């Protein structure tokens, strides 16, 4: 049986799809048979970030509506052979997804995968609820910023009340906090929430901290999950997060401002605060 992991946040634009792509790729690099599903029907993006947009023939809606077999819709990644992508439909809306249909897709995928990642759309409406409904674990993506933290708090409440595990009163969905777009210099200047503050409010275990990095935008634009960029701090942070997810004990990196900012700070830092 595969583990179903939802990547969710409540708020949009915090890095759910980037995280889904990186995390799925990272798990697959470790030899785990992984499939990542785009639940953002109508605003499909995952295929772009994964660089498979030119290979999409069928999508999850076709499968649910019986117009295609699952094997026809799954796209196998060319870089990591244990990774596949199930794209969303761009021409439909979220009502095209049904709980029974999604249940069937997940059950079928479950047979020959270790991990099923569900890339949730933003919000707490139907698409997001379906993406988290079957989850065994949740990666809650949060920016160090008050509105993102509050929305993550909301989605954690939803996970504990509206997921299948909650409805069936089984063990609760296992939660992981992933703080993304963390900029240590702006944190030091008090322009962003400190990691401790985010952790105190959300009170769930920290899976990783991904620093703000230009390499993320570059990775998105070239359709290469950022975890494949071994030069990138963001990519390395995602690698660490995957390691921790698989039970490794790794120190947290990229939490302090980099040295090169030192001189600049010494020159101008005195005037702040």
């Amino acid at each position, binding site marked *: 049986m595969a583990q179903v992991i939802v990547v969710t946040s409540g708020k949009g634009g915090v890095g759910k799809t980037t995280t889904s792509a990186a995390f799925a790729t990272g798990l697959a690099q470790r030899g785990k048979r992984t499939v990542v599903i785009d639940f953002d029907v109508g605003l499909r993006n995952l295929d772009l970030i994964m660089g498979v947009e030119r290979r999409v023939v069928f999508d999850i809606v076709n499968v649910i509506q019986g117009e295609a077999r699952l094997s026809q819709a799954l796209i196998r990644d060319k870089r990591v052979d244990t990774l596949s992508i199930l794209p969303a439909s761009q021409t439909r809306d979220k009502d095209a997804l049904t709980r029974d249909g999604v249940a069937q897709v997940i059950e079928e995928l479950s047979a020959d995968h270790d991990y099923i990642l569900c890339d949730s759309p933003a919000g707490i409406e139907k698409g997001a609820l379906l993406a988290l409904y079957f989850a065994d674990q949740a990666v809650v993506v949060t920016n160090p910023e008050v509105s993102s933290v509050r929305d993550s708090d909301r989605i954690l*409440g939803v996970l504990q*009340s509206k997921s299948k595990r909650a409805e069936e009163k089984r063990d609760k969905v296992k939660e992981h906090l992933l703080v993304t777009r963390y900029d240590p210099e702006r944190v030091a200047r008090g322009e962003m929430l400190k990691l401790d503050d985010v952790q105190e409010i959300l009170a769930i275990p920290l899976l990783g901290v991904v620093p703000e990095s230009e390499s993320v935008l570059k990775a998105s634009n070239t359709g290469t999950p950022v975890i494949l960029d071994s030069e990138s701090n963001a990519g390395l942070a995602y690698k660490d997060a995957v390691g921790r997810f698989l039970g490794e004990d790794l120190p947290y990196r990229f939490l302090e401002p980099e040295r090169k900012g030192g001189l600049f700070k010494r020159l101008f830092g005195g005037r702040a605060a």
Partner: protein
Amino acid sequence: MSSPALPESFRLRAGNFSLLVLRLLDPRPETVLPALGDQFRRAPGFLRFAPIVIGLQDLQAAPEEVDFRALVEGLHALEIVPIGTIGGSAALRQAAIAAGLPPLRAAGGKDPAEEDMPPPPAAASTEAPAPSPPAAGQPPDFRGAGRTAMLVTEPVRSGQRIYAQGADLVVTATVNAGAEVIADGNIHVYGRLSGRAVAGAADDAGARIFALNFDPELIAIAGYYAVREGLGDAPIGRAVQVRLEGEQMRFEPLG
């Protein structure tokens, strides 16, 4: 005191119940019953054998105009069980007693004998706490008697709402911004209180709010409320208890 020699045959305990109130707007059973019947045919099974309280506060009628016996019979026929009345004039209540419907008192409300005029709705709305005078003529202080506490050990998250009905509420984690905790009794938060806390929701002006780290969006006791902006001189970020003194909210550091 029961004699220890005899085996116990009963125990008398206080209990809090939440009941539906059927507020009469028309005194004539022949009008009310068919309308009720219609309503429940649409939702069969709903309210079946449910105990119900008949609300008289909206009724502008002389006692002889209301045939309580016919009403009770009709309700029984609809499989609804009336158990008493609430509100209304003393004369109306007398007429109801004659038909086997004793006057009830809403939790924290006044004794019906004291309220002769059609009273304002007794229970404070937890939706939108608004200032209301504290209940006069409170019975002797039995707070705590028969009241249990509801215990919450997980963080109360944004968008969640927890109501401890007829009870105290104890939260051993944080109450985050955007969350709401409500209790008919006291509220204890052994963490940071960043959301809303509404204590004494059933009009208990003696209820208090305790928080280890006091940083709320809104607090209310028995309908009196203060938003964060109005908490200028309250000891924010400290361990605090909040209580009502007359119409004033008092914030006192704890420990």
